């Protein structure tokens, strides 16, 4: 079976700064893969490079059986979509939810826009009451639902999730994570999810990669984290830190 996404020795360089150092990974169809690390670890850069938002210096990216070139065509965006971290920055401030969802349909020339918008809103649990609101009339969780609806409306097979819940309150985070799991089951999606929160990653992903300063630290199964079966000190530190403050005696 061809993997949904395979990346080979991917390197991203901004001016003199190497943001991503020859990272390789493969993600199977229907799998959920996690990237964990702190700021500057290159985890978001990897997602953005796949999406065509960061310059690829060397290495290759394959989506399905297709090798990606320098530019991404329309067909690529039918297959791969992304949800951003900041729900306040990822929705156009001058457009209604309706307009936001119409845009991708319009670009790809869908005919039954009315039905699709309605269905997309229902799928993320917003309903038609939100259809003509502007983004400033929505809460953070509602915005992220709109962003998910927008990503799903083109029916992609791979969803890139860049810290989709880190700007949300814990209770809203739970709702959005449940929604993401739901749509993944319903549509048999492949997830690549970035987060700094080990709890969220182990909850959402089967396999994960720990990253630091643009490079891979180690690769684990979610169950390895649960049983503390890690080999690198860095990962161990992250695990300890995720449990909260420990007062030294």
């Amino acid at each position: 079976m061809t993997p949904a996404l395979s990346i080979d020795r991917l390197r991203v360089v901004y001016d003199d700064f190497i943001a991503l150092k020859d990272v390789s990974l493969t993600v199977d169809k229907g799998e959920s893969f996690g990237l964990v690390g702190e700021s500057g670890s290159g985890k978001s850069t990897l997602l953005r490079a796949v999406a065509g938002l960061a310059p690829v210096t060397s290495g290759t990216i394959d989506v399905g059986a297709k090798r990606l070139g320098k530019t991404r065509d329309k067909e690529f965006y039918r297959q791969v979509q992304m949800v951003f971290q900041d729900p306040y920055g990822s929705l156009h401030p001058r457009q209604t939810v309706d307009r936001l969802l119409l845009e991708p349909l319009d670009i790809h020339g869908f005919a039954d826009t009315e039905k699709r918008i309605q269905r997309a809103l229902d799928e993320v649990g917003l309903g038609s009451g939100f259809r003509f609101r502007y983004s400033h009339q929505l809460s953070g969780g509602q915005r992220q639902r709109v962003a998910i609806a927008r990503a799903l409306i083109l029916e992609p097979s791979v969803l890139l999730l860049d810290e989709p819940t880190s700007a949300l309150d814990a209770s809203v985070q739970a709702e959005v994570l449940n929604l993401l799991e739901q749509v993944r089951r319903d549509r048999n999606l492949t997830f690549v999810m970035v987060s700094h929160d080990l709890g969220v990653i182990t909850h959402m992903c089967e396999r994960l990669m720990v990253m630091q300063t643009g490079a891979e630290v180690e690769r684990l199964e979610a169950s390895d984290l649960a049983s503390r079966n890690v080999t690198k000190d860095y990962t161990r530190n992250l695990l300890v830190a995720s449990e909260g403050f420990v007062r030294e005696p």
Partner: protein
Amino acid sequence: MSDAVMTRREWLLTDRPQSRLQARLGRAYLTWSRFAANKLAVIGLGIIILLLFVAAFAPLLSPYSPYIGDLKNARLLPPSSTNWLGTDDQGRDILSRLIYGSRLTLQVIVLVAIIAAPIGLLVGTAAGYAGGWIDAVLMRITDIFLAFPKLVLALAFVAALGPGIENAIIAIALTSWPPYARIARAETLTVRNSDYIAAVKLMGASPMRIVLRHIMPLCISSLIVRVTLDMAGIILTAAGLGFLGLGAQPPLPEWGAMIASGRRFILDQWWVAAAPGAAILIVSLGFNLLGDGLRDALDTRSGGQ
């Protein structure tokens, strides 16, 4: 919710609009109420509406012909009950000339806005979004235009094109787009790397579509404000060209040209120059007040809160 009777205001301000139209009207209403809260801005708007009204009904409003005067009996008469603002050296009624002159002023403003603003918007957003050498080339051209004082450049253009109101308009338009390009570029640079533009890119939108449909609407409000505030300057430049004899030609009742012809009598018959001067002052003030109000009302960042 829907079965309760809503007032018009509630319908406009609702959190759950039922249609595209309602959402748009609600937004427009919010903008208007922010604008209307500013008394001075409303006065400015009033002045501009008055100018439009006067220009539209000039033949009905003006008591005399603006072109034909009574050279024998009515030269340089002071303001009186028959000639409210007096007469000029050709014996023409100054009020009537002012009223007809408003049409010329309006013509200048509208044409300059129609020519200069889109050029600036296009150059600025294209340069800002494309970056690289396109940005460099477009902005150096802009810099060349900005390097000359506006009036001097306009004078050079008019000298090359020949005097006349149409050429004056073209000259002013050609000299006033560079600041708009700069504003549009600056605005584009602040949004081009935002997540919501990245999201549109991820939808597969072409650069053209991104610029036209997603970036331009964000630049337009600050551009409208700037153009409105510039109107006063444009009127003054047009009047300056008229004053120097390079704009509207006699006997056209252009306000700047009227001041020019009145300057010979400024000590003894001050009203000949003062009346068009006051007209320019009031209209410029109107545009400035309007622009200030629009700046607050159209502020994109405040959203609608």
